[in-house]
């Protein structure tokens, strides 16, 4: 990574946004602060950020939709939601939409800094695609490009979230061998997150929707009872 990491802060509460931006700048980051979804779109078109801190409630939209747009436009950007709504349903929704992390207000700034560092580290690891994973890999009916965080299915391109990409990459790197749920959790989630094995299962359900030719029969990503999952086929084009 050259120079300070670029963070996009999308926060409509003036005092929170300004103080957050000042403190992040003091911590050594380059910060772009915007208060609306429209300004956020302009900002990432001008300069793609490495990480976006998104407030969920915005005056001209919501952070969840904005995260999906950001994912499609700049797949490399890590997304962290900052929200005053701490109910579990919203948290799950945020994480399922591909958020790399989700922090409930009020938070400790040092905790936020730690989460940002972890997310940036993970994003950097994902950006460094090993030689054998470069190019397009055919997994089931999907053509997956790990460098671009995208999967093409029946001519339609889908943006992969960082975690989807991490899980799929792990399974692809061990194709033909079973990978335990614990190992998936260990590799794709950081130590300060507290997911369950069920979280992995939810990600697998979503990945199957992309890669399985037959939605009713999982042949590409098979469940191995009591162990985890096994990717049966991957061919590099």
């Amino acid at each position, binding site marked *: 990574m050259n120079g300070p990491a670029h963070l996009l802060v999308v926060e409509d509460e003036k005092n929170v946004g300004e103080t957050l931006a000042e403190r992040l700048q003091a911590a050594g980051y380059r910060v772009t602060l915007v208060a609306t979804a429209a300004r956020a779109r302009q900002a990432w078109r001008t300069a793609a950020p490495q990480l976006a801190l998104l407030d969920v*409630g915005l005056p001209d939209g919501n952070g969840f939709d904005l995260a999906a747009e950001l994912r499609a436009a700049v797949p490399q950007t890590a997304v962290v939601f900052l929200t005053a709504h701490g109910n579990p349903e919203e948290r799950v929704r945020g994480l399922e939409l591909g958020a790399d992390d989700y922090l409930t207000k009020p938070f400790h700034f040092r905790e936020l800094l730690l989460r940002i560092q972890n997310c940036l580290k993970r994003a950097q690891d994902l950006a460094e695609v090993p030689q054998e994973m470069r190019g397009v890999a055919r997994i089931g009916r999907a053509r997956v490009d790990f460098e671009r965080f995208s999967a093409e299915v029946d001519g339609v391109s889908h943006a992969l979230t960082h975690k989807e990409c991490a899980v799929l990459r792990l399974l692809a790197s061990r194709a033909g061998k079973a990978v335990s749920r614990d190992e998936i959790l260990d590799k794709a989630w950081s130590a300060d997150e507290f997911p369950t094995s069920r979280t992995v299962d939810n990600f697998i359900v979503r990945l199957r929707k992309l890669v399985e030719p037959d939605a009713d029969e999982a042949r590409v990503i098979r469940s191995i009872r009591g162990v985890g999952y096994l990717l049966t086929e991957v061919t590099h084009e």
Partner: protein
Amino acid sequence: MNNKAGKGSLSVMPARRARLFAALAALWILLVLVLGAGWVMLLISQAHQISELQALTGSADSTVTAQWASTHRRVVGESAVFLLLLLAVSALLAWLYWRESLRARAMQAFFAAVTHELRTPLTSIRLQAEAIAEGDQRVELARRLLEDSNRLESQIDKTLELARIEGGGPLAEQSVPLQDWLRRTASAIAATHGARVDLQVEAAAGLPPVLADAAAVQMILRNLVENSVRHAQLERVQVGLHAQRRGEQVLLEYRDNGAGCAVRGPELGRLFGRGAASGGSGVGLYLVRALMERMGGRAEFHSSPGNGFRAELSFVASQEAPP
């Protein structure tokens, strides 16, 4: 601005109570159905008995069968009335259940909104406090702290006032000289928002005093100004207050130059009503309307995209001299 969602009150139906209510309603409907089936069987049985009696006596117009037929008709009539009554009570129960469910949902939304409204300034306060603890001594941080603590205070006041109003709490109405009061209080309210509000007060000469609770009028103006600051989408919002006599009433017109919204007037000010992308707890404008009505006056709200927000507050003119 406040919009959408239904009007409700502070009565909450907890989940356990709602389940009990649903179980009782189901039992009631079952009872109605069993009674209905019982009556139908009784009527059929009676009809059979009449037929058998007619066959035994060999005459259709004998006194006994005529009396049986009369009794049968009376039982049919009574059964129909009683069943209709039961069905009406069932419909009432169903309606009550539906209304309580709506209220419970509105309350849930309200608590979520209030939590949001408390957590946001708390986040800001914690960020400023952490910065100060680490040696940042900028005056700007103190200004933000004050602003956030004002916001917290206002939210708590609104919630308490809502509980008081819904609980039928009294107002201390007296003769208030609106003209002088506006100049002092409205300016002080605007001052709490610093450079974000530019407030102009204009009052017609010879304005009579109004019958009002001064604390309630203060809350009304504070809520209106907060609403403008929150929704105007401007760095500095211009607010105009214009008071004039209209018959036996004093009309106070409040107007801002904000972005406005497409919500119809009657929808604005509904309790717990909030726009999808709008902040707030959905209480501010409701309190304005409720307090005005409690003082014998009226509040009407108007807004349209690009034309800002306007409120017309009608106070009852007082015949007494101010204390």
